[in-house]
């Protein structure tokens, strides 16, 4: 488990990093840590899987592309096979197994709005399973942070 220092660091790092040529030194000053300790702890948390990614979060929509949540009803017996086929698409940004008849939920991030429909159609073709698309119609505040 993470110690208090790493928890404080992960809480801080969910917010934007200052645009500074030495950003880890800047974050370290805020938290009373050395630059070296900040870098070492981030590397350790990545290694341990507590941080899955560290870097820029891109908005596909602002780049002229699109995001879309999609779901499939995948029979348990075919789950691994379908997962491999779905995950092979670079447009699949993340994918979760959930305990529902619609058992596979993934987010497509594509460079053009048409890319969503095209990718969903390719996945349907490859798997023979319908892909249901749930594009966002309205966003009600993204409080993306969790407290570690």
């Amino acid at each position, binding site marked *: 488990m993470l110690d208090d220092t790493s928890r404080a660091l992960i809480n801080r790092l969910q917010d934007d990093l200052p645009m500074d040529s030495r950003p880890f030194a800047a974050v370290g000053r805020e938290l009373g840590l050395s630059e070296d300790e900040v870098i070492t702890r981030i590397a350790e948390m990545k290694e341990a899987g507590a941080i899955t990614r560290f870097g*820029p979060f*891109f908005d596909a929509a602002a780049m002229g592309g699109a995001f879309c949540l999609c779901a499939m009803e995948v029979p348990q017996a075919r789950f691994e096979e379908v997962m491999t086929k779905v995950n092979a698409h670079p447009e699949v940004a993340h*994918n979760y197994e959930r305990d529902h008849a619609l058992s*596979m939920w993934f987010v497509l991030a594509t460079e053009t709005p048409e890319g969503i429909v095209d990718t969903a159609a390719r996945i349907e073709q490859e798997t023979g399973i319908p892909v249901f698309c*749930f594009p966002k119609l309205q966003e009600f505040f993204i409080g993306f942070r969790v407290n570690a």
Partner: protein
Amino acid sequence: MTTATDIADREIIAELQAGLPLVPEPYAEVASRLGMAEEDLIQRIQAMKDQGVIRRIAAAPNHYKLGMVANGMTVWDVEDARIAELGAQIGALPYVTHCYERPRAPEAGWTYNLFAMVHGDTREEVEAKRAEIAETLGDACRTHSILYSKRILKKTGLRLRKRG
């Protein structure tokens, strides 16, 4: 269709999408890989942040590893006429991390139009929060459900396809 992202920015994005290097001067390192000056790279990144192409430079935590093993996607069938008002209320709750109105999918038997992600240390905690949301929605909500995540199957963030 042309995208808002020009070629130089594409190269920067391609270089950064795996993450920021964990070295004291990460921008200097990325700039040298791209054959550009650090100062120019920082300027381009700042411009992409100003345009909203980059939302933030930050860490994506793994909720499971942080002890938040219960992660429930709560879904609600809310009266269309009241969704703007009620969605804003639910989105403002401190334990809701994402909240969206999405289309229903009757062909999939899916009647829910409001999605709210709730994280907690235990399922009991998540269920208690779900009950609070149900109370807030009152009779504007016809049916609701919760989908717990069983497994992360992939988590890479955005990847651009290689051109050409």
